Each structure stands twice: as structure tokens, then as C-alpha cells.
């Protein structure tokens, strides 16, 4: 049933249909409305046997889910920014413990200075943590990704935390038409969670052992292997999803006009819509530009990225975060994925801390790169003239 809803509702609705056993909540803008909507559902008795708990912090919320997941529960929380950073110790631990917790991260900038607005600085911090991370472009995509996240996370070949990233405010608070799933569809796609192993007095196992040097490395190999297997399992889940809903999300990285494009623009998240628009317009003008929409960030889809970029003379990455002291984090990944190719490489950090990215800015950056008017390397997008002073 298509309905105009806000992004946070599209998530809450979808979470409900996934029938989680334990939801831990802690407020942070612009995520709060997700857990508030879930709270309303809980309060109205719409969440079945689910336990909804208000934690004392994001750190506590994530920790609650570690215990719940280890005991065999399907678990969910949402957070972003400072909350995600506060959770990070727990989430990395959950990855190593192979607990399939699902998190929605409503991407928001990091302090300082404090900013409640959108960029991708928060999720980038967890790049190396062993969490599956995908980024969505629309609220329909966000809505669909929740059942998919549970399905992949809980797949016995995977067993990893799964983080769905959606842009704070830009998506969470946007009104968009969303084809809201119904229970039968989700039930047919996502069976109840059957943990391969869980805490029970019937089989009193020890979870969270520490590993001495003689076996630690092997555990990290199994974590890497699970991540790599997730690449296949995500693809399979997309296909199953398409069969059931008719919506195919196109895989880890979706190329448009990449076969003959001289310049391929790489984008991740909600900015992609506008970038696509500009690319299409330039195409109509006969300019050989293409788009690579990156959906899966971890595990990184090297094969798809290489394949989409193999013919490009120029690559331009729109960054939504900075790896301070180097360049934009997506560009770093893309460059390493195309090792051996020698295109010109450009990256632009835009929309930091919720700065509006006007269409003209995108048009100008792509146009300038296409016409060879900018130097290769990393740039900040439109930045005001400023003078650096102490006070």
C-alpha cells in the first residue's frame, strides 16, 4: 500500500513487521522519531511479545542487545552520531561475538563543533569494525532494507551485526511515497530467528571467551570470511526480495552509463538522486558521464566497483565525510578497489554538517571535472572565505 510517510516511520513500520524480540531505545536527533514510533506501537500493543526498553545510554542500549541476542532474541536499535560513537565499543564486540544485531544509523555529523545535521562522519568511524554497512538513497529503500538486514545478519553463513545507514533529516524527516510492506510479505521473506547457538541452561556454553595469541588471528579470519560471504548473501537476499515484492535494488554498487562513460561519478546515500539527475542531463547534452551508486560499504564490493570503473578515464567521488589528515573515506576505498587502473581521480567533500548542497554545486563540480578545470585529488566543496583566528 503506497502511502506518503516520513523516513522514520518507514523504518518503524518495517521493524514492527520483522517481529523483533527486544528493542533498546535511546533518543538522539534525528533518530529519535524511529524509537518514538516503535514506542507508540509497543504502548498500543502492536509489537506482540517484543520487549521494548528505554536504556540509560546508547552504550547501554547496544549492550542490552548483546545480552538479548546472545540469549537468542531478534534485536533492533537505532542511533547516530555521538550515540553511534558511544555504542562503538559494544558494536565492535558484537561483531567479534557474531551477534546479528540490526541497527539503523541516521547519519549525522560528529562533534566538535556539535551539529545535529547530516553527513557520514559517524558511520565511517565504524568502517573497520566488522559490521555490515549499507547506505540507502530513498525511504522506500530504507523501508525495504530492514527485513533484508535481519535476513542477512541472521544467515548462519554470516552472523554479523548489520547497520543500515540513512541520511539524517534528508531522509528521516522527508515525506516520500513509500509502498508500505504488509505482514504476509515480510513473514514469507523473513522467518522467525533461529539462532545456530544461544545461551541456555540446557547447554551451558561460554560466550565471549578471550583468545590468546595462539588462536586470536584465526577468529579474525573467520570474521573476515563471514564478511566476505555476506557479499553473496546480500545479493541473494536482493533477488529473493525482488521475487516477493517486485523491487530489485540492483546489488552492491549500481552503475548507470558506466560502460562508455569517460567520467564516472561515485555517490552514496541520499545525495545520489540529485547526482543522477545531473548525470542524466549531461548525458542528454551528449557528455559521456556515468554514475556509480554505492550501496554496500562493508563488505566493500571490490568486484562491482572495479567492473563499473574499468572504462573510466576520470573518477569523481562525492564524499560526505573526511578522514582528517588524508582525504575522503569513500575515495580511499574506491582508489584501492581499482588498483592497477590509472584514471584521473577527484573527490569532493560536500554537505558536511548538513550544509545544503545546491544542484548548481553538483553541476559545477561534475562539469569542471569533466572539462579538466580542477586539479586531481581531494577538495572540499563550496567553502566560504574565512580567516582562522584564536578568539
Amino acid at each position, binding site marked *: 500500500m503506497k502511502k506518503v510517510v516520513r523516513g522514520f516511520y518507514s523504518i518503524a513500520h518495517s521493524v514492527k513487521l520483522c517481529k523483533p524480540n527486544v528493542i533498546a531505545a535511546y533518543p538522539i536527533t534525528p533518530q529519535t522519531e524511529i524509537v518514538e514510533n516503535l514506542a507508540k506501537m509497543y504502548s498500543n500493543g502492536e509489537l506482540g511479545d517484543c520487549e521494548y526498553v528505554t536504556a540509560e545510554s546508547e552504550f547501554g542500549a547496544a549492550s542490552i542487545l548483546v545480552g538479548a541476542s546472545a540469549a537468542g532474541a531478534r534485536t533492533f536499535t537505532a542511533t547516530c552520531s555521538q550515540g553511534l560513537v558511544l555504542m562503538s565499543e559494544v558494536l565492535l564486540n558484537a561483531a567479534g561475538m557474531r551477534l546479528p544485531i540490526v541497527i539503523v544509523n541516521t547519519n549525522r555529523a560528529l562533534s566538535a563543533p556539535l551539529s545535529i545535521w547530516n553527513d557520514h562522519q559517524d558511520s565511517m568511524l565504524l568502517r573497520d569494525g566488522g559490521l555490515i554497512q549499507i547506505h540507502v538513497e530513498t525511504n522506500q529503500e530504507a523501508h525495504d532494507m530492514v527485513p533484508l538486514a535481519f535476513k542477512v545478519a541472521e544467515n548462519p553463513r554470516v552472523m554479523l551485526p548489520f547497520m543500515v545507514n540513512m541520511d539524517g533529516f534528508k531522509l528521516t524527516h522527508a515525506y516520500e511515497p513509500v509502498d508500505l510492506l504488509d505482514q504476509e510479505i515480510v513473514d514469507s521473506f523473513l522467518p522467525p530467528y533461529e539462532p545456530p547457538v544461544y545461551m541456555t541452561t540446557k547447554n551451558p*556454553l*561460554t*560466550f*565471549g571467551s578471550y583468545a590468546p595469541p595462539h588462536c586470536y588471528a584465526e577468529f579474525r579470519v573467520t570474521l573476515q570470511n563471514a564478511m566476505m560471504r555476506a557479499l553473496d548473501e546480500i545479493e541473494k537476499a536482493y533477488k529473493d526480495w525482488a521475487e516477493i515484492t517486485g523491487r530489485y535494488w540492483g546489488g552492491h554498487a549500481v552503475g548507470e552509463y558506466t560502460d562508455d562513460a569517460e567520467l564516472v561519478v561515485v555517490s552514496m546515500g541520499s545525495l545520489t538522486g540529485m547526482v543522477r539527475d545531473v548525470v542524466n542531463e549531461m548525458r542528454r547534452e551528449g557528455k559521456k558521464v556515468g554514475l556509480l551508486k554505492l550501496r554496500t560499504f562493508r563488505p566493500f564490493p571490490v568486484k562491482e566497483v572495479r567492473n563499473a570503473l574499468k572504462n573510466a578515464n576520470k573518477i569523481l567521488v562525492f564524499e560526505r565525510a573526511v578522514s582528517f589528515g588524508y582525504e575522503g573515506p569513500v575515495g580511499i576505498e574506491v582508489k584501492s578497489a581499482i588498483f592497477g587502473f590509472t584514471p584521473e581521480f577527484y573527490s569532493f567533500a560536500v554537505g558536511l554538517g548538513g550544509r545544503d548542497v545546491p544542484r548548481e554545486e553538483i553541476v559545477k563540480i561534475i562539469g569542471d571535472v569533466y572539462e579538466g578545470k580542477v586539479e586531481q585529488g581531494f577538495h572540499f566543496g563550496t567553502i566560504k572565505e574565512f580567516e582562522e583566528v584564536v578568539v
Partner: protein
Amino acid sequence: MVIRITLGGISKPHSSKSMKTGDWGTEFPIVDEEKCTACRACEHLCPDGCIVVVEKGEKKVAVPDYDYCKGCGVCFTACPADAIRMELKDIYKLDVC
């Protein structure tokens, strides 16, 4: 040798049994079975769970498990009947000339 790597490092219960800690200590407890009243104070207080009251013939008495006993002396101090004494292991009985 192939090692087993479980999901997230899950371990089997009581797998510490393979660690024989009996050679840690310099002393070991000896139970005077005559004096032992089988009150279980030592059993409850041994940090290593390695002294247990068992039936021995007519009587119930405390029996240390020297495979694991660390010779800490807690049982010796816990025994209300003074039935446990600690003795130095032979290898530590050095002749000092």
C-alpha cells in the same frame, strides 16, 4: 594440527579441566580422616573446588584432588575441626648446608 574455531569464540563448559593446576603450589593439604567431621567448610571455601566430602567406607570425609589443588591453604584455615594440615611438597624440601 587443525584447531577448532567456534562462532564468536564460544567455549564448552568445564573445558578448564584440561588445565591441571596441581603443580602450582609448594604445599598440599592432608586430611586427618579421624578428625574430619564432613562439615563441608573446606568444600564450600576451596577457591578451586578441589576438595570434596565423599563417602569412604563407613565415614564421610574430605578428599583433596591433587590434580588441581593449588596448595593455597584456605581449607586448612577453614576447617573447624583442625583436621587439615599443610605439608611442603618433597621437591621443595631442600637441604640447606
